[in-house]
């Protein structure tokens, strides 16, 4: 890793990290602030939900209506979009651009002609992606935990919350690895931001679609969102070895492949 490049990238990406962190933190806090009002209107909400088809509830991530009234259930249903989807979009946009921007901005003609190896470029920039994604997750999780502690009416399972936080981080890091991999495959030097965001949204859509009907349930397995499994977010929520292997294994595999490809990549300017 090259210290000079690492520090430059940390500084260069600090502004967008702060903006993303602030937006997600504010969204989580605001959502959790209405939990009290939600509980006070539980009869109306239950009546409203009773007329909704089961598929619509499943689509929203509600497998058991009672879970929705627990603070952890409310947190997972209402905040899943922020950290699972927005966090993944942040990770993939950052990682797909961090190497590629040197090509489409044509600054690679400087960076890659200064004395540092491709490996150093890759590891320095990948370390920045990793640290930024971890930072975003830690701050968002802290905001979620503090909000829940303030608005809760009954104790909630900290264990389940920590497992969800870990899964969310692993999911975001997985998309970080996907972004890196995609950027090393690109032959023409142009941004792939739209493609990256589209991929996250399509995979999330496939996951939600798979929950609506039994016949489509199998397609959920091609989406990484499936392996976070927020449907059973209560004290029974467990860290599953299969899911850990899926996230960590695939992320490592994609990162290693990206590293190997980048070391031999022709830089077109």
């Amino acid at each position, binding site marked *: 890793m*090259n210290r*000079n*490049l690492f520090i*430059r990238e940390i500084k*260069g990406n600090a502004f967008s990290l702060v903006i993303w962190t602030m937006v997600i933190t504010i969204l989580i806090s605001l959502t959790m602030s209405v939990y009290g009002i939600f509980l006070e209107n539980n009869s109306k909400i239950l009546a409203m939900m009773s007329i909704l088809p089961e598929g619509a509830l499943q689509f929203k991530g509600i497998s058991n209506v009672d879970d929705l009234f627990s603070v952890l259930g409310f947190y997972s249903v209402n905040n899943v979009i922020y950290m699972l989807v927005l966090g993944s979009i942040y990770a993939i946009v950052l990682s797909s651009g961090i190497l590629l921007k040197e090509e489409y*901005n*044509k*600054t*690679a*003609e*400087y960076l*890659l*002609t*200064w*004395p*540092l*190896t491709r490996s150093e470029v890759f590891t320095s920039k990948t370390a920045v992606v990793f640290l930024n994604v971890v930072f975003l997750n830690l701050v968002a999780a802290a905001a979620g935990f503090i909000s829940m502690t303030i608005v809760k009416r009954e104790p909630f399972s900290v264990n389940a919350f920590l497992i969800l936080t870990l899964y969310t981080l692993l999911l975001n890091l997985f998309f970080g690895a996907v972004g890196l991999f995609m950027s090393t495959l690109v032959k023409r030097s142009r941004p792939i931001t739209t493609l990256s965001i589209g991929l996250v949204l399509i995979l999330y859509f496939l996951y939600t679609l798979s929950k609506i009907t039994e016949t489509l349930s199998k397609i959920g397995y091609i989406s990484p969102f499936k392996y976070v499994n927020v449907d059973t977010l209560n004290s029974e929520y467990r860290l599953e070895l299969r899911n850990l292997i899926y996230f960590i294994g695939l992320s490592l595999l994609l990162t290693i492949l990206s590293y190997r490809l980048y070391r*031999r990549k*022709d*830089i*077109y*300017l």
Partner: protein
Amino acid sequence: MSAPIIDIRDLTKTYGRDRGIEHVSLEVAEGDVFGFIGPNGSGKSTTIRVLLNLIFPSGGIAKIMGMDVVKDSKKIKFHTGYVPSDANLYSHMDIDEFLGYCLGFYQTGSGEDRIAELSELFELDRKRKISDLSMGNRKKVSIIQSLLHSPRLLILDEATMGLDPLMQARFFELLRSENRKGMTIFFSSHTLSEVQLLCKRVAIIKEGSIIKVEDIETLRKRQLKKVRIEFADRADNEVAGLGGIENTPVVSGNTLQFMYSGDITELVFKLMGRKITDLTIEEPSLEEIFMHYYN
């Protein structure tokens, strides 16, 4: 004789079905000012990008300072400076920040002094943002970043593009001064007059292959002559079959023009019996020699 600072053997780079460079071989001696000339798309930038390890060769080998450009790229770059044709710098930085960032990659203690010295030479305000700079000023920053570590080898790719004539003259003077101190300069350009001003030797590249490597003076002093004959009546290809005709003679009205490297006596004999009103035999310019190789 010492080992060449740039040693390219049979270097090939292809882009799928497209040609890049084919079997390029070239040697540049340490301390030389070497011109690399060819029109746009001839393979100059591809050769340079292989040397700088931006792209990987499809075949052959290239060495700088005796080191392989792929395996020892980092070591080579400690002693190499590069000015690309386009000055696409980090636009969000100011000049000082950019040069400081660049300096951070080199292990040199005198970099700050060098930056100050070169900024003064090029009359550059280092506090200005790169995004506010003109093409010429960005080029000056690009030149400074290539020289701040006092490299042994400087690679220039259309380096004068965007510089005004005054700054171009100052830059050339700087290059001559650095060359006197021992720096080797590899000067790629499509403008022969620039190469002529600075370089001792030149390689001409055409459609991805080197077609000539020669001393500038030898190139100029070759026996190649530009012949122009004006006849009293309509001209024809009067020199057909004569040895030493280097190109297809151009017939226009009463005039016949061609490049000739043969015996002048034989030419005069060949023209006997024809009424000639004017005959000019002169040294072609370097530009004409260059175009001759291209045609």
